[in-house]
């Protein structure tokens, strides 16, 4: 449906450092409104009348950004009168799920048609009884997805949106589950989530079949399948407490920040175990957790940055590792510090006619409003980092082509620019150096964020990032074949590398894409130039929902890629606007 777009997102934006002349910055054209349409169907071919469709502008700074509508009796929906922008579109119907893997958001634009097929989710039922065999009543259930349908580990997700509890017979029923493997937890604050106090809040809770997490058995469920008899023998075990206070952050009451949230994440796994909340008017700023089981955790605090709360600034704390081993933990201090942000603008450059012919020019009139500016965090390959509090910072440029990515933690980031069609590529991402403190200090012109990424310090408000997008992008697509009768590995990844040695460190010119069953691959939005293509295996443990960070981010891996690519020597030269189709990439 949106093949091109999907691939662009796997790519890092590509760049050529400025050498062309005669570029003209395009005028901002009057914005024409448009619509996004689509249809929501069940896998039985019946329209999903009443399904909720959410169409929202990427980022959160547009007051007119969000539309919620229901599909009509034929499953159709239309959202009209939309301003040009990049949109995310979701469809949801209770007890049904979308079978598509959504590890990456897809973006849509005016005129797009978005079709959804929803499938009845899995169901898990069972009974919770105590050690005397009596039903455990009104115990909350947490259903934690730990593996995908193929059994690979995924980012753990708990069941928070629709709390389920046991009834007066101790019976529970959880539905609308995606295919995969789950842990089922009864009781405990984790299962309770938000809500009024409950008898089981201070217990650690019991996992299926009867105890702590180490003895938990994963329950496998497929779409449309009902798994019965997941009965839990509930052991009322008191957990331990963690208490402490939050230091620093905004002065006075926190009404404008909506209070402070404290989140206890498991370690590893980093799913939210419990959350606590300090009221805006609580001058002590103290927090406590009860019913915490033995184990390792990361504790983080944040104030502001929440949806629907208008704050002047927002604050995070650095994660604090907590180890619970047979006792309470007290007097933990979490220090709030201001979050970082990245601000800048998008500049549109147009190549001269002699280089980029009219037929190659974009038909869209609303660039750059339809661009998505995002950042991806580079943890240096560490998989056990606490989950960032703003997992996917994205924004769309405003009327002045300016963007702002907020609520960022300190760390290393790579820009991730998603372009609305295949005529454009990212030419450069430059950060203007701060004004020199003394005349003697040498003025370094620009930092090349496209190459190096962005190193963000705690509380840093980085300004003057200029993203230059230019037309004349090239593209290449093709298919992977093996030798005659050779069985291809089930999953392969195609890497794209700049062949020019001078561009070896330019991350914007690297790309990678995982192939699907059809063995096809495609790269779009490429800067003209020479590239190598390289085929590699995908690690068996890598889940589709949890792709490994791009290999080129790591300096050593990058060199290794280059050595392999040079040896394989699948060299292509792409001219401006050139589209190479049907490229045959042979597995050797």
């Amino acid at each position: 449906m949106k093949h091109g777009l999907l691939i662009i997102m796997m790519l890092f934006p590509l760049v050529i450092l400025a050498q062309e002349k005669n570029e003209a910055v395009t005028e901002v054209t009057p914005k024409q409104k448009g619509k996004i349409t689509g249809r929501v169907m069940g896998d039985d071919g019946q329209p999903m009348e009443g399904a909720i469709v959410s169409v929202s502008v990427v980022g959160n700074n547009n007051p007119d950004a969000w539309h919620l509508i229901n599909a009509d009796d034929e499953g159709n929906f239309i959202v009209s009168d939309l301003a040009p922008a990049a949109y995310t579109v979701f469809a949801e119907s209770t007890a049904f799920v979308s079978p598509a893997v959504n590890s990456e958001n897809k973006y849509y634009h005016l005129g797009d048609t978005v079709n959804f097929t929803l499938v009845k989710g899995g169901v898990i039922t069972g009974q919770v009884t105590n050690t005397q065999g009596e039903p455990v009543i009104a115990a909350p259930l947490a259903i934690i997805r730990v593996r995908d349908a193929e059994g690979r580990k995924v980012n753990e997700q708990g069941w928070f949106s629709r709390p389920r509890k046991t009834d007066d017979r101790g019976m529970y029923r959880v539905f609308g589950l995606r295919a995969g493997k789950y842990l089922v937890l009864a009781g405990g604050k984790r299962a309770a989530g938000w809500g009024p106090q409950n008898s089981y809040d201070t217990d650690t809770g019991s996992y299926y079949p009867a105890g702590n997490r180490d003895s938990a058995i994963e329950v496998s469920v497929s779409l449309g399948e009902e798994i019965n008899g997941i009965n839990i023998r509930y052991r009322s075990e008191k957990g331990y407490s963690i208490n402490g206070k939050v230091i620093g952050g905004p002065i006075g009451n926190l009404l404008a920040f909506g209070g402070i949230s404290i989140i206890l994440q498991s370690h590893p796994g980093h799913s939210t175990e419990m959350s606590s909340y300090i009221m805006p008017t609580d001058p002590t700023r103290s927090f406590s957790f009860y019913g915490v089981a033995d184990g390792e955790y990361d504790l983080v605090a944040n104030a502001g940055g929440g949806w629907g709360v208008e704050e002047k600034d927002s604050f995070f704390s650095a994660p604090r590792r907590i180890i619970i081993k047979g006792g309470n933990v007290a007097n933990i201090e979490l220090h709030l510090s201001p979050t970082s942000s990245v601000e800048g603008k998008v500049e549109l450059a147009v190549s001269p006619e002699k280089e980029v012919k009219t037929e190659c020019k974009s038909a869209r009139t609303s660039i750059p409003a339809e661009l998505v500016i995002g950042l991806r965090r580079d943890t240096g390959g560490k998989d056990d980092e606490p989950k960032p509090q703003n997992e996917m910072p994205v924004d769309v440029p405003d009327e002045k082509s300016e963007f702002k990515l907020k609520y960022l933690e300190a760390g290393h980031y790579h820009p991730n620019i998603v372009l609305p069609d295949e005529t454009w590529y990212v030419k450069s991402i430059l950060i203007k150096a701060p004004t020199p403190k003394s005349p003697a200090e040498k003025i370094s012109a620009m930092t090349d964020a496209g190459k190096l990424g962005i190193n963000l310090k705690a509380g840093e408000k980085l300004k003057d990032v200029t993203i230059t997008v230019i037309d004349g992008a090239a593209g290449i697509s093709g298919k992977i074949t093996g030798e005659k009768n050779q069985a291809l590995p089930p999953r392969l990844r195609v890497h794209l590398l700049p062949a020019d040695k001078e561009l070896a460190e330019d991350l914007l010119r690297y790309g990678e894409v995982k192939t699907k069953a059809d063995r096809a691959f495609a790269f779009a939005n490429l800067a003209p130039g020479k590239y190598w293509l390289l085929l590699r295996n995908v690690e068996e443990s890598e889940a589709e929902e949890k792709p490994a960070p791009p290999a080129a981010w790591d300096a050593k891996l990058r060199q290794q890629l280059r050595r392999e690519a040079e040896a394989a020597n699948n060299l292509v030269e792409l001219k401006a606007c050139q589209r190479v189709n049907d490229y045959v990439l042979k597995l050797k």
Partner: protein
Amino acid sequence: MNSVLHFTLVILLMVTGATIFAQPRDIRPGNSSISGRVAVGDKPLPGISISLSAGQFGGNSQKSMNTKTDAAGRYKFSGLAADSYRLVPNAMAYVFESDRMSNQPSKAVILGENEALENIDFSMTRGGVMTGKITDADGHPVIEQRVQLEVKQANGQKSRYIGAMNFFQMGVTDDRGIYRIFGLPAGKYFVSVGDGKNNGSISIGGNSKHYPQTFYPSVENEADAQIVEVTEGSEALDINIRLGKSKQTYEARGRIIDATTGQPLSGVEFGYGAMVKMGDRTRLGAYGNTGERTNVKGEFRISGLSSGTYGAFLQPDEGSEYYSEPAIFEIADSDFNGLEVNAQRGASISGVVVIDGAVTPTSQAQFRNLGVFYNVQINNASTSMFRQPPTINPDGTFHLKGLQPGKGMLGIQSVNGNNIFSVLRMEKDGVDITRGFDVTTGAQITGVKIIVGSGSGIIRGQVNIVGGTVPSGARLGVSARRLNSANNMGFGGGQLDARGRFVIENLIPGEYELSLNPPFVPGQQPSPAMMRKRVTQNVTVGNGEVSVTLTMDLSEGK
């Protein structure tokens, strides 16, 4: 589906806003204890979790203590300081009496120093169960649809049964369309699913399909609804409802303009609600907002509306200079376009709040949480569109904007619900304005002075009921009103605890009138005879504690 989830959260925050800002209080250590027994008749109930929190209204679970009943159904909390407490047994499948309206039944207890308080017992009955299946016109299960219960009262009136149904997904159908409600008090119930007609209820933001309200047994006409009788510990099975065709929903679009200049107002929040008929006039019933704001052209859009009469208005927020009356529109069988909400630039009032008398660290800390609110009377009907009052500045100054003109009144409240201050008087340019003042269109009123005080006086009391018993489910409350002050400003109230005790704190020395109001059952109009049983007593309060006993005679003819 992140965005969908966020949406739900916003609604939740609005609904539970009051709870969120109620300050939890720490449980302080001391030498007193509370104990009791939980039983069904003579049979003890072991393993029932009981939580205890400090303060008359309790707190949240973060600052509560928990224990479980032993094999004999007994529980005990020891090491407690003298204070007010609230006890909440978590026994969803059981029914017992609560002394206040809440999702969780509970009991208040006022504990003295070195007191071993015993026999704070909970007498429970096993609640009834109701279960059934909800299907649509085609016989397909209707998923995640909320079943509503109404109880037929002794006087024939109906009242909505809430119980634990709101917080707990109890009463919501599963993927098979099946619901199961338990812990129901014995009674006669009307069961229905779908949107009510003209009852002023509205689901803001809307989700999924709207069905016309359908009663058990699958009838749309309320008069044809059948009563479902629930008795102690019984199960009412197959209370199935087949719904009619789902209702089409429509959209309303409009804009908010400055009524004077005609200019659109962008970036302002808007709200909407269902209009209800009250006698010969129509007013907003339930209303709310989704946090959405008008776009750059002042336009807004409301979706998910089924046919009915609605009102859309500018939702004033802190710092907003405008207010509006609801613009009324009717949705019949199509979208509504071109709605115009006329917003007026409101009046402003600024001034200062000052503490009369000594300032203690406690009062200083609480002072920071004070907010000044404004109420206006129009045609003798008080309107108060929800608006979180801005807190005063650290120096006590305040500035209110966007106020609707009329006979205005100011008041103070604490954003954390723990107000220890009472208003002594309010003045402007030496003139007493405590009882209100005229606010004209666009007036900019400055120099308002609100003098507040807080004392260390305490009235501690005991209520005795003679000549009868308080009806089941009824509540009693005590309030204190300061006499002989410039304007008789009322202050302080207390709820009776399990032993009929009450405590009213932070009183400024002076003469007070204590009132014990007759028992009332929430949702029921008390009889005039009952109303006359109100007991009052004058009390002189100094800087310490005063003990009072109030006796109410419930015998006939008194």
